[in-house]
């Protein structure tokens, strides 16, 4: 945000240079930084997809445990199972949409909503896993 304000300030102070190569460069840089505030890069999507995969792997290992109550020291709570499965399914769709976009646009900026959908589902799953001490 600070960076954006600095660029906006520079752009305004150089408004008189508009039409010159330097003025155009500043304006373009300002626009590019504004775009990164509202959009994400393929690298950010790649990292978000991997982060989602990490929680999916941990959740899968949890689902493989025997249902509680059991004599085993670790077990799977059916109420947690009910919460995790639909979230993981929704996250998988969000991940696939984001990855498809990033692959099709290797040099572009994705709409931030694609990224936010994926990261917010990942955070919700992480919160559930923390709450129930499901780790990976």
């Amino acid at each position, binding site marked *: 945000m600070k960076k954006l304000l600095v660029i906006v300030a520079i752009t305004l102070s150089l408004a008189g240079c508009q039409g010159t190569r330097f003025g155009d460069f500043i304006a373009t840089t300002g626009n590019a930084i504004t775009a990164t505030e509202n959009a994400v*890069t*393929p*690298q950010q999507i*790649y*990292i978000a*997809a*991997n*982060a989602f*995969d*990490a929680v*999916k*792997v*941990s*959740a*899968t*290992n949890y*689902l*493989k*445990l*025997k*249902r509680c109550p059991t004599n*085993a*020291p*670790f077990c*799977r709570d*059916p109420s947690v*199972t009910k919460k995790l*499965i639909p979230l*993981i399914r929704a996250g*998988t769709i969000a*991940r696939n949409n984001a*990855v498809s976009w*990033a*692959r099709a646009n*290797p040099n572009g900026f994705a709409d931030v909503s694609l990224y936010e959908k994926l990261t917010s589902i990942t955070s919700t799953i992480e919160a559930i896993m923390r709450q129930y001490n499901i*780790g*990976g």
Partner: protein
Amino acid sequence: MEGLISLSLGLITKLLPMIPALSTPLVRDIVNTVAVATPVVISTYKDLKPIVANIIKSLKNSGNITEDDWNALIEAEKLIDEDFDKAAAAALAEDKTAKE
């Protein structure tokens, strides 16, 4: 390595009753818990290692995700998705049976 750990834990579990000082229920419970937890921890560590490696690599490459990186990710995700689908189906089936 994980085979060696499991073997050692199995051996400890078997030897435990022969050592009176260590045969208290508390020690038995601890050893049994560790014995059950170890394969889960090892499996999770092995599953998560390539994912963490991917993230570190992409951060090191300062934004350059290659076609090979995407292909490797998608191949890995096919296995992750299949594994989840099987585990979810089994868990739901187990829960359904338990309710009936």
